[in-house]
């Protein structure tokens, strides 16, 4: 009898030890009751803070919607652009709702969903610098947020233009605007949504649009750990449902409001 108990206990222990290991991230999130989202909060209107220092924005609402779908509580973890992957890998967050451009290089490291938003880029400059379009950036001092899609595109063009044109990579969007308004740099390239929001806000004096930047459309996706296929699968369906139910359009109208919500599909190809 005692021996039987021993075997049973051992079996139970083994089961207990094995079962949690098989639970994947999706299970963990549901079991823990909290969804932790990495959101960039100096990137209006996608993410910023209101007068009471509470996180607001498209990405914040998106995270809340996701938490609601999962039946858990949402926790927004403020994460600067360069820290998104470290936050994910070190387990401080479960998903990144952080306007992450889905490059092939990055997909070697992080798991990307289908696009949940798409940006076009514009030049943002200052009164009196004399920049009217993208080509007049030649010979000027430029800068952007290190690690963003537009920073990489701008830096490679700056390298192509050669001597005289400079590029500086800053650690967050606020520092770029500060540098631009102070005259440390003459121009930056940012997403049209951010440019519109920052010019309208008027906190930084003299900033103005300097025309479109001729880059590809910047499709951004949710990110999770690369091996969490269960979670990524759920997220893909969630993105699809957001569009299907009209929630995507509603959020677009609420936070951006200019024109049509950008199409998230690429003609002529699956995914």
């Amino acid at each position, binding site marked *: 009898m005692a021996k039987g108990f021993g075997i049973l206990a051992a079996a139970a222990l083994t089961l207990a030890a094995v079962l949690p290991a098989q639970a994947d991230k999706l299970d963990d999130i549901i079991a823990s009751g909290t969804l932790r989202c990495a959101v960039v909060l100096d990137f209006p209107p996608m993410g910023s803070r209101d007068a009471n220092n509470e996180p607001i924005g498209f990405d914040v609402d998106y995270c809340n919607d996701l938490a609601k779908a999962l039946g858990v509580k949402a926790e927004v973890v403020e994460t600067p*652009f*360069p820290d*998104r*992957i*470290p936050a994910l*890998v070190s387990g401080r967050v479960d998903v990144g709702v952080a306007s992450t451009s889905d490059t092939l*290089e*990055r997909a*070697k*490291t*992080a798991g990307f969903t289908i696009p949940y938003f798409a940006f076009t880029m514009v030049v943002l400059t200052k009164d009196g610098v004399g920049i009217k379009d993208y080509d007049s950036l030649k010979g000027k001092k430029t*800068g952007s947020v*290190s*690690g*963003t899609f537009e*920073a*990489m595109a701008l830096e490679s063009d700056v390298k192509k233009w050669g001597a005289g044109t400079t*590029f*500086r*990579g*800053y*650690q967050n969007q606020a*520092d770029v605007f*500060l*540098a631009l308004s*102070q*005259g*440390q740099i003459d121009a930056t390239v940012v997403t049209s949504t951010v440019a519109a929001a920052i010019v309208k806000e008027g906190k930084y004096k003299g900033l103005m649009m300097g025309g479109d930047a001729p880059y590809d459309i910047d499709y951004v996706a949710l990110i999770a*750990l*690369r*091996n*969490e296929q269960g979670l990524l699968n759920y997220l893909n369906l969630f993105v699809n449902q957001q569009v299907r139910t009209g929630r995507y359009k509603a959020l677009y109208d609420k936070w951006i409001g200019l024109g049509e919500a950008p199409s998230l599909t690429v003609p002529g190809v699956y995914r």
Partner: protein
Amino acid sequence: MNYTFHWLPAFRALPDMLWGALVTLEIAVLSMVLGVFFAVLLAVGASSKYRVFRAAAVSWVELARNTPALFQIYMAYFGLGSLGIHLDSFVALLAGITFNNAGYLAETFRGGLRAVPQTQLRAARSLGMGQIQAFRLVMMPQMFRIVFYPLTNQMVWAILMTSLGVIVGLNDDLTGVTQEYNVRSFRTFEYFALAAVIYYLLAKFVTVSARLMAWRLFRY
């Protein structure tokens, strides 16, 4: 940890990172040379009989030693920027670290000078040396011996502080280059590990060569 290391692409970035390390070393060396220069002025200023010089020297030392280096560098870039003075990222970082170095080194020099007994000066004078001669031949060598290791410490500290350049947009020093590779590929751990090894080797190079120099210089 849910992460598999990709070392091969990381090693391909090594040449670029070593060029970055050269910029890092350049800033550190310049900041030390300038720092020593200003530290001597500060040490002299702190014992000046004019209150203005004393106050200026004391407030420099106090600010440099009791506020974060990150704050000092940020102020050199964005602080002066708001007053319409535009320093380049490189210059702002150099200015910030020089400011910091000078503050610490001024105290090091002051301490070093006080550690040499005044009787040495009197003994030298009684041997017939002039004031300057006694200072140069008797006091200075003894002081140099005392401040030598704190100086190398500060040099190591300066190398490590250059990593703060990323906050003012510097992207060609070791941390800047590392960060560029990092954000492009999201391979944070590999690139940061490589950078850490390079920083370690730089710092070790400084301490070991200082030890060798001390062995040559301070033999009786």
